[in-house]
């Protein structure tokens, strides 16, 4: 299958999944975005979430943790979502409020050659318990290393630690070169 066809298939699937999710959560949607992601979009998503929860009876620390996770997920999309054939980004992000907690959905395209790195990294982290995640996080802070692009590369680790590993991922291979990566996270409510 050509790369162009793989892009088209990703586009169809991502758009359909996004619309299905929006329809399913039309009554409890906090914020969502599909298409190109940027720092400006992130600031707007954080602000929308903060305004939605302004009068909600949740602990301040809980609201902040939710905003923090939004930041990490969206910056992860900005940094690691692979653009196919230099076309526009195929990704979406959504936050919905459920009875017991908040559900966050993130989807983006990823090149298969990069997907294996992600899977290895995430599987290692998922196998660790919360204390081990805490130790790994502390080790990263002590090493204080940044990659060539100035990023710490500990976003996923922090997300898993802060969500108590209520995290699931799915990798759907579309063709020889491209896959779709779906992430879903649950943050249980903490009332004031």
């Amino acid at each position: 299958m050509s790369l162009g066809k793989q892009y088209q298939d990703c586009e169809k699937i991502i758009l359909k999944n996004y619309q299905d999710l929006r329809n399913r959560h039309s009554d409890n949607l906090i914020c969502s975005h599909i298409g190109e992601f940027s720092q400006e979009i992130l600031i707007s998503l954080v602000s929308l979430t903060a305004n939605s929860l302004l009068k909600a009876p949740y602990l301040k620390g809980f609201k902040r943790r939710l905003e923090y996770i939004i930041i990490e997920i969206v910056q992860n999309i900005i940094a690691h979502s692979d653009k196919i054939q230099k076309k526009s980004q195929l990704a979406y992000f959504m936050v919905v409020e459920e009875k017991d907690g908040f559900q966050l959905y993130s989807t983006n395209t990823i090149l298969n050659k990069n997907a294996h790195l992600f899977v290895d990294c995430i599987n290692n982290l998922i196998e660790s318990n919360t204390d081990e995640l805490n130790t790994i996080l502390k080790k990263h802070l002590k090493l204080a290393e940044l990659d060539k692009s100035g990023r710490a590369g500990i976003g996923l680790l922090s997300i898993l630690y802060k969500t108590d590993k209520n995290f699931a991922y799915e990798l759907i291979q579309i063709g020889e070169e491209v896959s779709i990566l779906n992430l879903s996270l649950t943050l249980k409510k903490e009332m004031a």
Partner: protein
Amino acid sequence: MIYRQATNDSPEVKFNIESKILIIKGNSYPENCSGLYNPIKQFIENYNIEEMSSLELHCHFNLLNSTSSVHIAQLIMLLADKRSKGLNCKVIWTYDEHDEEMLDLGEKLASISKLDIEFKVELDD
């Protein structure tokens, strides 16, 4: 001298030469964390121990991304290094009431740097 106005995603940074207090306050999740923190690291690296003798770092963050936390760890390590060379330094870590994760980060930084970090809680209105 160092000064930077706060934005939606980056903190206010200011240094008072008389009190020798460096304040970093606000959100910290910019797209380019190096652009924000490298000048602060440079400022601390170039800080003249003999002339200035002391430095207080006051940190009070709201939202902080993981890359910012590593940059802050680098800042704290730099301060620890300066202390070993004779600088009288102090870190005050303010966290909002109920923001246990910010307290947790401050405690991790204290543990890895061996600096005595003073913790202050800012109570809700």
